[in-house]
């Protein structure tokens, strides 16, 4: 298990290759990568991600451990950035390795659902019109009920 919280960009390809290089016990590797989207209006300049140093690592570790206890996983990776990002930048990624594909998929979706609403990150969108904190979505909270 590897949990990384950092300001710098990460290399999705290098991380995916390193993660998938482990062994022949895990037939299934799933990655999810989150990318800063342009707003509908198309005028997003910067996305600022604030986090709670200390608690962030604890929360991510707890979520990853919960995934490992629920599914048969060979490995879990979580990388999440904070600081200032631009549209198209990669915010975060998770990766799961498992003997079977269903476990790898379910665990990756679980990680994402929990990471959205239970890891202490907050997003602020800065446009030419000003700055707004991104509101939590009811559907993200609802997504937790299926696990």
């Amino acid at each position: 298990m590897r949990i990384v919280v950092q300001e710098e960009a990460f290399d999705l390809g290098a991380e995916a290759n390193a993660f998938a290089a482990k062994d022949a016990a895990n037939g299934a590797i799933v990655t999810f990568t989150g990318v800063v989207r342009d707003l509908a209006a198309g005028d997003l300049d910067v996305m600022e991600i604030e986090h709670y140093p200390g608690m962030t690592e604890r929360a991510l570790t707890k979520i990853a451990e919960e995934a490992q206890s629920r599914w048969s996983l060979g490995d879990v990776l979580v990388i999440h950035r904070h600081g200032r990002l631009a549209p198209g930048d990669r915010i975060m990624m998770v990766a799961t390795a498992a003997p079977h594909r269903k476990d790898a998929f379910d665990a990756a979706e679980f990680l994402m659902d929990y990471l959205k609403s239970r890891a202490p990150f907050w997003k602020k969108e800065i446009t030419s019109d000003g700055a707004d904190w991104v509101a939590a979505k009811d559907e993200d909270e609802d997504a937790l009920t299926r696990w």
Partner: protein
Amino acid sequence: MDVLYFAWVRERIGLPKERVETEAATVSDLVAELSAREDRYAAAFADLSALRVALDQELSDFDAPLAGVREVAFFPPMTGG
């Protein structure tokens, strides 16, 4: 104890962290105490349903006791991922 604020709670109160000497028994008591201090606290804590609280870096509730707690953090619902 240390009290931390994040996102718009931090902006509304105007600081990220402060040292608070308090006898508050629960999180709600602490919120009431802070809200009585100044308008900016009252504004930040006006709608508790829009807030979350962590005690020593674990998500908790507003009716949780503060005994033994070293760090309290207030913030809006999280938006990671």
